[in-house]
């Protein structure tokens, strides 16, 4: 008998030794719990908190437990935690388990959870994934909820930002609604006012917009030794404003061999390789344009509204926004805007509570206020954007630089409108050669057209296979 017990003990010890690694990581997580800055720890502590809350409150009506998964930096997580607390106060029968995953792991984790049938009730959904998840039946159709809810008025939300989450079975833009915009990020041009004054450049105004040539001229005036005139220009803005696109209207054929596309592409590349008004590729890898701008060594740069906080905190000079220059051929301007959505899983057992949660998180006024006063984004609610945000006494002076993009000329990126983005990485894998002047835009576009088309065909095929 003694022997047997000894054997058992030894076996158990062996098993423990084998799983040693696992135990160690568990320990780490436990010790990390005190450190609220680590993402993992936040997951852990949040879980325990909500579990405790769940156990304490067994007396009343049955408690609904929701899982909500997202990513975010510290301030975003803190904002969301505060919002979730407010939600739980408003709906005392619901407790939310808030899981934070590192941004870079998020999509992998989400896909694995879907594969395992364990998706959270409500979750962040990046715009690139909306089509994939909606087409595979992993997003709950929010259309009827949105029309009959009492948390927000859909007409008060940027139409652009709502419509990108509609999917009709073939493309985004119309049809049933599958997510609500957690935020909107407008992409605009920021410029260094001090450098402009020193170089004697007058920024464009609404009555006197710039075209590409004006932009180039200004960049040339600004470039001086340590200072570059501009970062690499937004390809989207150049291409779209010139009336071209990567793909044709049906999104099934590549269209970048069109002369209008090539012209725009060449304009962007020439800024670096011909006119040397943008940092070279090696200068860019060693110090990104973003940091160069913050250091006051770059005149103009494309910038998203998410960078407002950094601009506030790091710039030792005056800065402001301008609209994207128009194409000299069309007189039109264009640029992309981004957004991340909040979605509900159709597998959720508490659809109504989950819908309420995402609507509350997306359109809660206090949260919107926190997010623009901390420089995270511009409000999703129009009345607030044109009201208190526009009147806010902080840079940029020209807040319409962001708002115009959302109201007027912003578009959803082409690659977000296809089923997968492999063709897009293929197109981009060699564009540096054009930016560096090793190849002309025409040569490059001709050389990759076939391989990009092949990948696009695959994407279309994959989407069709699901219908």
């Amino acid at each position, binding site marked *: 008998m003694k*022997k047997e017990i000894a*054997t058992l003990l030894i076996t158990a010890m062996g098993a423990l030794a084998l799983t040693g690694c696992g135990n160690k990581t568990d320990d780490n997580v436990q010790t990390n719990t005190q450190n609220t800055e680590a993402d993992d720890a936040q997951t852990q502590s949040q879980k325990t908190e909500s579990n405790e809350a769940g156990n304490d409150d067994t007396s009343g009506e049955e408690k609904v437990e929701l899982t909500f998964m997202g990513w975010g930096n510290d301030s975003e997580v803190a904002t969301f935690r505060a919002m979730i607390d407010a939600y739980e106060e408003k709906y005392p029968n619901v407790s939310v388990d808030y899981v934070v995953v590192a941004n870079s792991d998020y999509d992998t984790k989400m896909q694995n959870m879907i594969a395992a049938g364990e998706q959270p009730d409500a979750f962040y959904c990046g715009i690139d994934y909306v089509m994939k998840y909606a087409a595979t039946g992993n997003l709950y159709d929010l259309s009827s909820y949105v029309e009959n809810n009492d948390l927000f008025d859909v007409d008060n939300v940027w139409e652009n930002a709502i419509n990108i989450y509609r999917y009709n079975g073939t493309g985004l833009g119309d049809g049933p609604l599958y997510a609500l915009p957690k935020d909107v990020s407008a992409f605009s041009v920021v410029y260094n006012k001090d450098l402009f004054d020193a170089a004697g450049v007058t920024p464009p105004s609404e009555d006197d917009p710039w075209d590409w040539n004006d932009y180039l001229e200004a960049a040339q005036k600004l470039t001086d030794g340590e200072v570059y005139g501009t970062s690499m220009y937004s390809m989207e803005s150049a291409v779209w404003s010139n009336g071209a696109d990567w793909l044709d209207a049906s999104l099934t054929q590549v269209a970048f061999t069109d002369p209008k596309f090539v012209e725009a592409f060449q304009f962007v590349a020439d800024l670096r390789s011909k006119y040397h008004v943008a940092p070279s590729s090696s200068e860019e890898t060693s110090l990104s344009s973003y940091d160069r701008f913050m250091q006051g060594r770059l005149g103009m740069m494309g910038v998203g509204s998410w960078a407002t906080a950094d601009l506030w905190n790091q710039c030792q000079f005056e800065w402001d926004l301008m609209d994207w220059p128009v194409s000299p051929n069309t007189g039109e301007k264009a640029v992309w805007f981004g957004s991340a959505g909040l979605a509900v899983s159709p597998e959720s057992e508490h659809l109504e509570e989950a819908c309420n949660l995402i609507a509350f998180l997306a359109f809660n006024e206090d949260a919107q206020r926190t997010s623009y006063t901390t420089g995270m984004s511009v409000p999703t609610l129009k009345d607030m954007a044109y009201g208190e945000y526009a009147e806010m006494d902080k840079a940029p002076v020209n807040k319409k630089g962001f708002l115009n993009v959302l109201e007027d000329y912003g578009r959803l990126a082409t690659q977000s409108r296809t089923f997968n983005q492999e063709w897009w990485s293929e197109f981009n894998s060699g564009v540096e050669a054009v930016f560096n002047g090793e190849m002309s835009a025409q040569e490059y576009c001709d050389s990759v057209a076939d391989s990009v088309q092949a990948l696009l065909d695959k994407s279309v095929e994959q989407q069709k296979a*699901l219908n």
Partner: protein
Amino acid sequence: MLALWHPDDMCLRKKAAGYEKGMVIIMAKNSLKRKERRAGLLFVMPAMVQFVCFFLLPLCLCIFASMTDWNVLVKNKNFIGLQNVVELFRDSKFWIAVRNTVYMLLPIPFYMVLGLLFALACHKEIKGNKVFRVLYYLPYVSSIVALVLLWKWLFNSEFGLINQALGLFGIEGPNWLGDPVWTKRMIVIMIAWKMIGITSIYFLAALKNVPPVYYEAATIDGAGSVTQFFKITVPMITPIIFYLLCVNIIGSLQTFIEVDLFTTDGGRNYGVATVIYYIWQKAFNYSQMGYACAAALVFGVMILLVTLLQFKLSDKWVYEGE
């Protein structure tokens, strides 16, 4: 499985032998054997459970999945036979990745030779060699993410220490992080540097195992230290050289994390991506799990062939003892 049945066989044979000696002894022996057998089973259990759960089962699932069009997001899978493999062989990106993966074998000779030299230096009783041993080993135990961050800073083309140092000699340093050819070279340098320590520890252990009598006899016969090194030391440590070659080649073929951390999308023109990176992208970025399983199997077979070849060749040069 063989290991499991061996004790049983023994049991049967002994039972037959015990028959002649009378029933009582048999009974006692029998229950003792049974107990022993149970204990034996318990002992191998953890290893078996691990083997079945984390190796055999996933392997079978992988073989099955490789013949389907399994997309992670879709519930039903269709059987498509070998179509995935055909598509894989047609994909030019896969072959680029294979070439890059072979490139990652480059650091092995460097760190094997340097590791041996370091081990020889440590083997001699020099003052402070314990400190050196710790220092050599440090890169190996450091977190790879931390190392990559450090190297990104070192190899920054404008402000990095490496290019600044090169600049002192009038050499214009390359764009390490932007140009895929140089990024690959940088990864090679980094892996070589990282692996020298652990390699030298292995060599040190092997050197300590060479019986000193051989050296004594050689000294009496008048052999110099160079002759001793090539005629005694090297042949005696061929088993560890062989072991390190096998393990390191497999390890190098599986290079992934450096590619993921140093580049986005495998670098310009996919110039840095390795096969594992390719598989990972297919599985987790593009949700094509079935296709990725097929790629993983094909790659597994490739590694197996390389390793078998090594074993085959090992008869020619590895010293197996008297």
